[in-house]
Each structure stands twice: as C-alpha cells, then as structure tokens.
C-alpha cells in the first residue's frame, strides 16, 4: 500500500526534473535583481536572483543561478564594456537561462546570456528616480543659493591622496601664476567603491565642524568607470551636499560624466583641474578689480581736483562778470528812471497846459452859446406873444361879426317885410282887442311905415 501510493524522494525529484525539462525545453528570458554575487576561483559565477515587491523591499521570489566559467568570461566582458558597470549586487539584469533541476541541489538557472541594454536602462531609470526624489525634497538649489566668497581662499578638499587629479589640483592651486596664497586642507575620503557616499559624508561632517575656517569645499576625483562614478549618484550623499553650509564645488570624473551630486553642488566642474582653474579665476579677477579701483580712484581724485579748480575759476569769473553787469544795470536803471521821470513830468505839464487851454476854449464857446441861446429864446417869446395876440384879434373880430348878424336877424322889420303888421294902442302892441274901446284910434305899423285907424267894432 505504502509502496504503491508513495514514491521515494529520488523518484519524486526525478519526476519533477522530467516535468521541468518538459515544461522548459527552451531557455527563458527572466528579469531579476542580483541579490548575491560571487565569482568562484574556479571561474564559475554563483548568483542569487530575486524579485522585490513593486514598492517594498520584501523579497517576493528568489532563485539560485549559475554562469559557468565557459560563458562567464564572455558575458562579463560584454556586459561591462556595454554598460560601463560591473556585474554586482543590486543591479537589475535581464538573463537568458535554462531552468535546471538537480535532484540534490534543487532548482537553479543556468545563465547563458545577460542583456546589457536592460541593465543600462535600469541604471538610467535609477538615476532619474534619485533626481526626482531630490527634486521633490525642494533642496536641489540650496547649496547654489549660498553666497560665494569674493575670493575662495580657504579650501577644504574632499578627496583621497591616491585619487586621480588630487595632486594636479593642489599643484595648480599652490603654484598659481598670480602668487595668490591658498589655504588647502584635505579631508580624506574613499573615492572608489560602494563606500563612497558614507565616506564623503563623514569627511563633510568634519569640514562642517570647522565651517568658519573655510570658504568653500571641493569634492574631486579624476577619471573612473561608469560604475565607479555611479556611487556619486547616491541620494543620501546628494541630499547631504545640497544642505551643506559651505558652497560645494565638484570635479568628478571625465569631461562627459555628470554624477547626481553635480546637480546639487554650488558649482560643478568637469574635472579637478577645472575646479582649480575655476577657483583661481576669482583671485585673478579680484586682484585686477583692486588694480582697477586703484587706478580709478587715482584718476577720479585728480579729476575731482581739476573740476573743483575749474569751478572756482568759473565762480570767480562769474562773480566778476555778474558784478559788472549788476553795476551797469543799476546805472542804466538810474539813467532810465531819470529819463522817464523827465519825460513823464514834461508830458504831464504839457497835458495840463493842453487841458487848461481846452477849458478856456470850452468856456468861450459855452459863454457865446449861452448868450445866443438866451437871445434866441427871447426873440422866440416876443414872436409867440405877437402871434398869440394876432390870433386873439382874429377871433374877436369873428365873434363880433357873428353877433352882428344874429342881431340883425332878430330885427322885427324882417317879419313886417313879409306883410305882417303890429298894431299899437297907447304905445303898446295890441294882443287882445277887448282891451280897446270902440272908436279909439290905433296905430298900425307895416314894413314901409305906419298908419292910424279908428276901431269900428
């Protein structure tokens, strides 16, 4: 029962081996990170590959891998020349491998090829990530914003005695043509290998202790491979440098290199020599500025004196000229005043004379006019009296004529003419016959006379 339902370990492992070989006939391309790396003296290379979680460092998968000596030399040379980077722990790789299974050692990958392009891409990405992270901290420009001394004369050097470029730098500084004195102090640090960041930071710590003694810090290291220089891409180092209280000047690697710390440094130079030239320039410039100022102040002082001399001369001349003008003007003003007074007085007198004469004329004319008007008024009055009288006489004449006519009209003879007669008795006109006795004589008047008659009845 046991025999039929169970297998021996060897049988099992043999079955697994056969299954795996069936399932992974061809080699596979696997992306992984090198976790452990060990070059065996025998020429083989033993590696542990892992895969970490997307955002964590926890290992999600791991496998052993081997590169046999026969392949390793080729693979390593190709990889390192292509990437400028050593095969080492922490780098990501794309490997072409057979899945091998050994009954005793278990599963392992037999690496036949490593694609350097993948790793290259990964390095670039890593560098980019570091840059982004730095950017996010907002301290990228902190060191750049530090005031730079007029002449950086006290220089703390972070480098190592053995580092390429160190000696060039010190020689260049100390033997400068302008004979400017520089105070150089080396703060040794490892400039190669993975301990670079920590070592440099330790050296910087020391500089920081004596901050007041120094004007600037230079970090220099000449030459080096890509992998050597990749340690200068370290985030922590960059973070430290950015916040360093003194201006940091970098001169790392070759012309074409630009490690991350270049970006946070106050000033980046390509090489240690370039750093020296850069620093020397300040002294040269300052000295020439001093010379220039010296000349300038000399010439300005002289010209100030010249200007003042001229000013004094001008003022003297101005005083001279304007005083003369003043006197002339005062004199001519007096002359003018006198002339004007003279003219005005004469004109005034003339005017008065003229007015008086005119008054005399007006008087003559007025007097005669007065007399003439009086006379003509008088004549007019006489004439008016005369004509008023004339009118009166005419009027009275008319009136008398009218009255005469009226009187004539009233004369009784006019009635008698028409045959009427008036009879009188005892001198009185008879109006009632009974008043007269029969036989009495009455007198009757007719137009052409009168006659007497006796009353018969």
């Amino acid at each position: 029962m046991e025999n039929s339902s169970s297998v021996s370990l060897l049988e099992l492992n043999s079955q697994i081996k056969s299954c795996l070989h069936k399932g992974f006939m061809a080699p596979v391309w696997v992306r992984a990170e090198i976790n452990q790396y060990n070059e065996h003296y025998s020429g083989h290379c033993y590696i542990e590959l892992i895969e970490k979680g997307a955002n964590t460092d926890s290992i999600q998968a791991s496998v052993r891998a081997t590169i046999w000596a026969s392949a390793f030399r080729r693979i390593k040379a190709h990889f390192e020349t292509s990437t400028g980077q050593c095969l080492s722990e922490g780098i990501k790789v794309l490997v072409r491998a057979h899945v091998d299974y050994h009954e005793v050692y278990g599963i392992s990958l037999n690496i036949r090829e490593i694609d350097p392009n993948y790793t290259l891409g990964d390095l670039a990405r890593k560098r980019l990530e570091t840059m982004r992270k730095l950017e996010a901290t907002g301290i990228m420009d902190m060191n750049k914003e530090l005031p730079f001394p007029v002449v950086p004369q006290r220089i703390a050097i972070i480098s190592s005695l053995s580092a390429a470029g160190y000696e060039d730098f010190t020689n260049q500084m100390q033997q400068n043509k302008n004979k400017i004195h520089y105070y150089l102090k080396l703060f040794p640090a490892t400039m190669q290998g993975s301990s670079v960041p920590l070592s440099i930071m330790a050296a910087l710590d020391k500089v920081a202790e004596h901050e007041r003694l120094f004007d600037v810090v230079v970090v220099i290291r000449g030459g080096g491979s890509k992998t050597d220089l990749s340690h200068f891409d370290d985030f922590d180092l960059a973070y430290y440098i950015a916040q360093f209280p003194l201006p940091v000047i970098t001169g790392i690697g070759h012309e074409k290199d630009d490690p991350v710390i270049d970006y946070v440094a106050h000033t980046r130079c390509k090489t240690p020599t370039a750093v020296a030239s850069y620093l020397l320039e300040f002294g040269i410039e300052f000295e020439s500025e001093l010379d220039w100022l010296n000349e300038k102040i000399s010439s300005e002082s002289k010209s100030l004196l010249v200007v003042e001399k001229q000013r004094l001369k001008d003022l003297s001349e101005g005083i001279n000229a304007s005083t003369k003008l003043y006197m002339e003007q005062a004199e001519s003003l007096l002359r003018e005043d006198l002339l004007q007074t003279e003219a005005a007085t004469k004109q005034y007198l003339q005017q008065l004379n003229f007015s008086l004469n005119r008054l005399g004329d007006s008087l003559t004319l007025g007097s005669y006019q007065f007399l003439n008007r009086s006379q003509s008024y008088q004549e007019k009055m006489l004439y008016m009296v005369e004509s008023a009288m004339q009118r009166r006489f005419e009027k009275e004449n008319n009136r008398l004529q009218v009255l005469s006519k009226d009187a004539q009209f009233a004369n009784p003879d006019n009635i008698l003419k028409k045959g009427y007669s008036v009879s009188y008795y005892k001198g009185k006109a008879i109006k009632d016959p009974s008043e007269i006795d029969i036989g009495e004589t009455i007198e009757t008047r007719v137009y052409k006379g009168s006659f007497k008659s006796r009353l018969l009845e």
Partner: protein
Amino acid sequence: MDKKEISYTAAIKEIETILGKIENQELDVDELAGKLRRVTELIKTCKSKLHSAESEVDKILKEIGD
C-alpha cells in the same frame, strides 16, 4: 352906464345874453326894439375897443421892430 366904462368882455357877455333871449322868444315885441338897440350899441363899442387895441398893438410892435 357910460359905454366907455363897460369892459369888452362884459359887453360881449351882455350881447350874447340879449341875443339868447331873442332866440328863445323870451322878449316882448315892445321890449325887442329897445334891446336890439342896446345890442347894436354894444357891438359898436366892442368893435371900437377891438380896433383901438389892434392899432395900439400894431403901434407897439412897430416900435419894437425899429
């Protein structure tokens, strides 16, 4: 009343009074002749006054004219 003593204005007034009465037939035939006689007298007087005034005025004016 002496004719010399009555003024021109008064004479005229009397004439006009008498003539007024005649026109209004206020006078008797017996009085009429008398009154008429008075009127002609008065008129004569007036005329004479007027003439003498006129001639005197002329004389005066002539004097001034000289």
